[in-house]
């Protein structure tokens, strides 16, 4: 369900544009070195199982 960022009135009214290309706070783009994070269904199921064990969720 995640989409590309869209322009919004709030952003146009009062703030600078978000960076076109993500970059670190020091200004050095580092995305290429980052691991791809994938939460697989079995991972999500394990999260639910563990939190259920703790009484966090029913």
């Amino acid at each position, binding site marked *: *369900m*995640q*989409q*590309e*960022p*869209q322009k*919004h*009135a*709030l*952003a146009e*009214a*009062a*703030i*600078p544009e*978000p*960076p076109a*290309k*993500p*970059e*670190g*706070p*020091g200004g*050095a*783009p*580092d*995305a*290429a*070195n*980052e*691991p*791809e*994070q*994938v*939460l697989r*269904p079995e*991972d*999500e*199921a*394990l*999260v*639910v199982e*563990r*939190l259920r*064990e*703790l*009484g*966090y*969720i*029913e």
Partner: protein
Amino acid sequence: MQAKPNIILISADSLRANHLGCYGYTLPTSPNIDAFAGQGALFEKVFAPGIPTQPSHTTIFTGQHPVTHGVVAHGGKAKLGRGTPFLSEILLENGYTTCAVDTLFRERIWFGRGWEYIIDPSLHHLFYASVTQEELNDRAIHWMKTVPKGPFFMFIHYWDVHYPYTPPDRMRGLFYKGGNPTDPDNHELDEWWDHPVGAMARDTWLRTANGLITDPNYVTALYDREVRYLDEGIAALSDALDKQGLAENTMVVLLADHGESMTDHRIFYDHYGLHDCVVRVPTIIRWPGGNVKPGTRFAPFRQLSDIAPTLLEAAGSELPEDLDGKSFLPQLVGREEPSGYDQVVGLESTWQSKYYLRNSRYKFILARYPDLLGNPDRELFDLEADPGEDHNIAADQPQLAADMERELEAWIAAKMEAAGRTEDPVTKEGPVAVEIWEQHRA
């Protein structure tokens, strides 16, 4: 224009105040929320009387302190009394069409009270906190466009910032200054793996094809990306209100139930411990038609228990007598000078069983049971000299610690008496999650 305002209450679960630009964060996590704050009023010092999610939201909806309503733990045994006033129920009775875009009712039945409509797109996920702002906004905006024929009250509960931190892939690179996120020689998170929530993270959302994420700076960057993603959702919702011509007469309240500890105080990426990173919450209110002056900042202490009475007064509803919170509506709309509490009291009884008493200078934390981290049962922090609450000065200032402990105990006793309680609810519940975890391990 209809006489009563529409009200949208937004809870951003686990949103830490000082990770927003308008609360002083230096990274650009929140350009749209900052702009939203510039159009309304920002409250600098709002505290959660109870953490985490279930106790805090119970306070938000009842206007009562957890000692009064009794729900002091997440997953605890206490149930909310049927006679306790509930915000959505009162607004429904006063002519509002009410809608929750939320998951909470699945866990505790009282969160279903007073809603004519409940929309829950998290049913499409195994774990409800995996629901995204886009999924919630899709439904919320459609509902606003098509259903209400008069004033409405909508509650939207965003989970993006809550763990697991899995921001959109397009945000890779954002807020991380570099290094190796999966360096096997980095052991800064090792202590977390001994905690069940840390072990869960290690076994699931921190695993990548490159190996286990071991750099806490990278995990914090993932959190900040989630804040940025949420920020886009706030902008989309605000846009929808503008396009429908609803912005002027809609009071929009953006708050969090609690904050988040990153690695603070050896509490990793979770929301327990009664330090300000967790109990101080962002609160921003925009209401152009209600004479809320754009860009106002309120410094006095307020509590989340003040939200329900403030919204009820804005809606023209009579306030129940048994609320602990006080409406700040007259101040919000400029009829009174800003004012607040000299001190606030809060509690937790999930991973730790503790109370805090906080004034403008000091915070005293009192444990009812020893905590897992081996902290002393009594902690005192000088927030002026030590805003990070890193140095316990209880032994250095025993008289002050004793005075604050006495004051805290007297406050608890008075609140219990007013609520008709004979047993301290925190002592009664104990650290619920710890007890369940220990039973499971045994």
